């Protein structure tokens, strides 16, 4: 149990010792570990994305009383790998009128914020590549970058659908970032730290979803919107904008966008698991497994929502953010602040 709990930490430690034993100076050991962490994160990214792409298709199938992918591999579990292979080998088409460089770079940049964000997520006790003091702030800052590649993609495609989609995406992501940040503020107030590890440790007795149910709901909604998932999938808006931002993308680059979407979802659900569902806390199972289970639960909710709801219209979307979520989250912060004050200082303050 203890062994399982610390298995990844121990592996990291082992690699570190190995590098040291190989005669590298401490600086280079640190560099090496950075590379190892990066590879690990990228690995997690890709694996998670591949898994969730399949799981989404499966769950969507179940919701629609279909079995979902069921051909390749046992019960269809190798389907995404096959799809990925197919997409990788497809021709990389760049439209004639497109801004070639930006068009190509966009698909790469889309991964940058995701990978950066994953670096601070604690997958288990001590299982974060970086444990920044400003963890949550860093997360917010980094995720705010994710608008830019989408804008790049939409603009460079030189397609009206793409441009409209990217404009929608930018407006939507900027608007929903605000309630997202505010909903996290309540947790920060209670936990008293911005360190993600610290936030998880603060939840050892009670999960913050109990103390901050409103914030959790707001966070969930904003997370869906930030990741451009249905019912907030306006930038893609298949029935409106054909494929929106991704209209002109094909082959591998389209696959990258597709994977990035799932990675982003994974980041968002890990943040939710960390901030509200107690991170690695849980009985019996190893911490990182608990963490992944919670993430899986939230991801499944994302998928469930997507296959149930119609798409929201763009003006309703903005109204909902500015007129409902922002005031609600502000009120939540306010109430939480008062609550924390009373909890700390008692009621004798007058």
């Amino acid at each position: 149990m203890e062994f399982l709990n610390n298995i990844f930490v121990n592996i990291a430690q082992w690699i570190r010792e190995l590098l040291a034993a190989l005669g590298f100076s401490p600086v280079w050991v640190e560099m090496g570990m950075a590379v190892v962490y990066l590879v690990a994160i990228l690995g997690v990214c890709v694996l998670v994305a591949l898994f969730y792409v399949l799981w989404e298709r499966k769950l969507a199938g179940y919701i629609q009383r279909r079995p979902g992918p069921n051909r390749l591999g046992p019960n269809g579990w190798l389907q995404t790998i096959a799809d990925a292979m197919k997409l990788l080998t497809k021709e990389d088409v760049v439209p004639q009128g497109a801004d070639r460089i930006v068009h190509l770079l966009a698909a790469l940049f889309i991964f940058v914020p995701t990978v950066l964000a994953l670096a601070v997520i604690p997958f288990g006790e001590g299982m974060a590549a970086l444990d920044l003091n400003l963890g949550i702030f860093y997360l917010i800052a980094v995720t705010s970058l994710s608008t830019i590649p989408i804008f790049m993609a939409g603009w460079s495609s030189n397609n009206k659908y793409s441009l409209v989609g990217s404009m929608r995406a930018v407006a939507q992501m900027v608007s929903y970032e605000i309630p997202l940040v505010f909903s996290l503020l309540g947790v920060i107030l209670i936990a008293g730290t911005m360190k993600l590890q610290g936030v998880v440790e603060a939840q050892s007795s009670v999960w913050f979803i109990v103390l901050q149910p409103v914030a959790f709901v707001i966070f969930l909604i904003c997370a869906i919107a930030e990741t451009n998932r249905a019912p907030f999938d306006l930038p893609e808006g298949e029935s409106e904008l054909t494929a929106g931002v991704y209209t002109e993308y094909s082959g591998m680059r389209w696959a990258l966008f597709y994977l990035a979407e799932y990675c982003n979802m994974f980041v968002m659900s890990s943040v939710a698991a960390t901030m509200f569902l107690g991170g690695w806390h849980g009985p019996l199972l190893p911490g990182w497994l608990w963490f992944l289970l919670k993430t899986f639960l939230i991801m499944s909710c994302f998928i469930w929502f997507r296959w149930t709801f119609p798409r929201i219209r763009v003006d309703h979307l903005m109204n909902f953010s500015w007129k409902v979520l922002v005031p609600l989250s502000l009120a939540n912060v306010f109430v939480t602040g008062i609550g924390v004050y009373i909890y700390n200082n008692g009621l004798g303050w007058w």
Partner: protein
Amino acid sequence: MKTQTYTLNFGPQHPSTHGVLHVVLELDGEICVGSKTQIGYLHRGIEKLVEDRTYPQVIPYTDRLDYLSGMSNNLVYVQTIEKLMGIEVPERAEYIRVLLAELMRIASHMVGIGIYIMDLGAVSAVFYPFIEREKILELMSHISGGRMTFNYMRIGGVAYDLHPDFYPELDNFINEFPRFIEEYHKLVDDNEIFKARTKNIGVISAEKAMSYGLTGPNLRASGVDYDLRKISPYSVYDRFDFETAVGKNGDCYDRYVVRMKEVEESFKIIKQAYKEMPEGPVMAKVPKLIKPPVGDAYHQAENPKGILGCYVVSDGSPKPYRVHFRRPSFNNISIYDELFIGHKIADIVAILASFDIVLGEIDA
């Protein structure tokens, strides 16, 4: 902000134009300021083609007008010829016709509603109606051998009697369908997003609807209680107890509600027709070679999409001199250009889908 408008070719290749409809939109940001609907991408010249066919040979072509409700199209055509020739159809055949037409209506509405809600973004909502439609298509294949193109109605009756396999399947369908209706109402009716997307969107006043010659659920959603099955009952519709579904506001939401209500009413008719179906022959006595007398006839019937009219001119030869179809969707979408103005792209998709158009019918 004052911004430059831009032109967006909405279709002919677009996921939500139900085929090959082409709308040239003039957009100011997301809001439509001008629209031009262009059709004809699926024009096959059926009216010209059938001038070279004998009267019975026309029937397969009518299947391909509104390919989601072939049986109803068959019915209109054969009834027109029967009117032209003055043929009395056996009662059992009439009951079968009504039964099948109403099944067809349910099938067509299942697609209409499903695709409508899918175009609004709820993808699962298309699968549940398609499951029910699948059952109806199975039923159809039991009696005619085909799933969408039936060629089952004949001048003077129907081609064959119902197949014995048909009855248990229909029982099965009748047992399971109410549960679907209940579930679907739960899934869609009260959904706030759905309501926000459809209420007060694409509002058509009763006057406008009448002026534009809208028919079918689109007309009734605007509050005009006009249903040929009630107003001038053809076949044996006067023997059944059902209501017409009428909306109030003429918005997209009402069009959905009316369709759902109509499905329930059709289901009632099916149950009655099934229960009361008489025994007897299914074909009237008609000559081997059908040569209607010189003259013309116009007949129309309430199809799932609206009123399908058929105008046949005979010159006394075995081939029709002229056949013209009044296709309901063709008339219905002529209001699009006016209706789109001032709506957002997303609303345009909603309006487009709420009309339940079939391009095969529009372009003929």
